[in-house]
């Protein structure tokens, strides 16, 4: 609107009225947004916010045999802090997930790069090929590794059959490495997509400019492509790291006693040990450990990015 029209609007009461109706409509439009989102919000609050709130409250209660003592206390947290094995288990879960995240992201980056820059005609085919495994049964994807790595599994029986070994290799299954391999495979598809999106968004003229300014392919990648794709790398890392810390299926199926993670302990607290408050406190502490580690990763990459500039 020109300034002449604006002053006319100020002067003319009818136009002013029109303006305020327009403003009301704008607010009304926002209101329509709220109305459309409200059923989803209701689900999020009712099925996530309230339950998680109750989880927090539960963690301050205590289990007295079959009764629950609802006096607020830090007893559960102190019990966990004083029990080295619990703290070590949380630490180990973080370490295993960090290893999984690193492996997944490093392996995913080249293929995301490939689809973003080298594939021109059948991008959609590649994208579908990498997303489909993500939607298929998690339980079955994990289970297939038990079949592969087991004492009488695919690898061992194949090695024996081919005469390479006499006895099955027992070290394949039931250890943290098996957990890392299985998780890295199960979460691989989810890491590719965010990296692909951030690479796809890079303005191609920047790359051209780098080439024109005399950068070779390696220098161009390190100075332009990689720094610009860091947001996708961080997103991928979070999407893999956060959920894997709490996984209990993989450790139970392929981890063995050494490969157990904090998810298994939480699970035990809610079923075998029947100590829900202690299990809740474990969940809260794990969530806290996840948050701290995620923030650390985020700050580190941000710092690295700023230095690269």
């Amino acid at each position: 609107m020109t300034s002449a029209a604006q002053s006319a609007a100020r002067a003319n009461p009818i136009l002013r009225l029109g303006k305020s109706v327009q403003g009301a409509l704008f607010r009304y439009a926002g209101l329509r947004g709220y109305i459309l989102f409200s059923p989803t919000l209701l689900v999020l609050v009712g099925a996530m916010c309230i339950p998680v709130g109750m989880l927090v409250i539960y963690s301050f209660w205590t289990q007295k045999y079959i009764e629950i003592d609802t006096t607020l206390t830090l007893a559960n947290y102190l019990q966990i802090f004083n029990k080295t094995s619990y703290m070590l288990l949380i630490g180990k879960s973080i370490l295993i997930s960090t290893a999984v995240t690193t492996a997944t992201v490093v392996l995913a980056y080249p293929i995301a790069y490939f689809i973003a820059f080298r594939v021109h005609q059948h991008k959609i085919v590649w994208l579908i090929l990498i997303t489909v495994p993500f939607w298929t049964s998690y339980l079955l994807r994990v289970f297939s590794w038990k079949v592969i790595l087991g004492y009488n599994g695919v690898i061992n029986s194949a090695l024996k059959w081919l005469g390479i070994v006499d006895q099955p290799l027992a070290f394949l299954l039931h250890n943290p490495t098996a957990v890392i391999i299985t998780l890295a495979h199960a979460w691989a598809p989810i890491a590719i997509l965010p990296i692909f999106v951030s690479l796809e968004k890079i303005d191609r003229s920047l790359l051209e400019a780098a080439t024109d300014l005399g950068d070779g392919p390696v220098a161009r990648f390190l100075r332009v492509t990689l720094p610009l794709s860091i947001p996708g790398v961080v997103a991928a890392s979070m999407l893999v790291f956060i959920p894997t810390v709490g996984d209990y299926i993989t450790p139970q199926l392929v981890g063995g006693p050494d490969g157990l993670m904090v998810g298994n302990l939480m699970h035990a607290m809610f079923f075998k040990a029947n100590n829900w408050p202690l299990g809740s406190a474990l969940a809260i502490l794990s969530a806290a450990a996840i948050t701290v580690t995620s923030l650390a990763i985020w700050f580190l990459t941000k710092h690295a990015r700023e230095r690269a500039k």
Partner: protein
Amino acid sequence: MNLLANLRRPDGLLGYSILYLIFLYVPVLFLPLFSFNDSIYITFPLSGFTTQWYEKMIESEVLLNALGNSVKVAACVSVISTILGTLAARAFTRYRFAGRKPMLGLLVLPLVVPGIILGIALLIMMNWAGIELSLVTIGAAHVLIATPFATFVMISRLEGFDANLEEASRDLGESGWTTFWRVTFPLAYPGIVASLLLTFTESFDEFILAFFLAGNEATLPLYIWSQLRFPKTLPVVLALGACILLASFIVITFAEWVRRRGVKPVESDS
């Protein structure tokens, strides 16, 4: 175009990507392979071809019952979450309102919070509210994780959608209702189909939340989990797994194809 020709230089990336796809797909293919093997042990060499595990599978009443439960839950979840997701996506793509960003953040949470924490929290709430665990509680938990997926699928469909088309329809004298049926719905339709299929599969395959929220009735993943301990029934589980993988694969490929077809890439090659 020069630059693109430049990037098309042959190198190891294509080979790597093919190896990666093999890594992604081959482990899972052992399930169907051994489901036709005539031995209860999952070992090489293969001892012979049989379809007996598939025959045993369709004879098992417990299994068929679990299958029925899973289909019921997944059907309800896919319809509910797609409706919620479509409304929410419309809110995010069409209207600007205060708190839009934090709401989107809240919507991502069910996807990233570890499943076990959501499962525990929901179990505590159901227990506190005195709600008996059943297929309904499993369904409620699945709606929580399926709705964000449905919303993001619908957002990616509606994002490029030009609001002018609706306005044009109004200007040409159509009512709000006919505009919806003749303009909005046909444009959103592929997204809705994809969302229904994807959320169905997600609920059908979900195990962690179902494990915490199950009553007496089991869904198919819970049935599979209960059978993993018994070596004798393992081949039947393999046969079942092979069927689930094949069905998921077909449904999802179709859904992704419907969803991505017609949606323009983030950036054109120009």
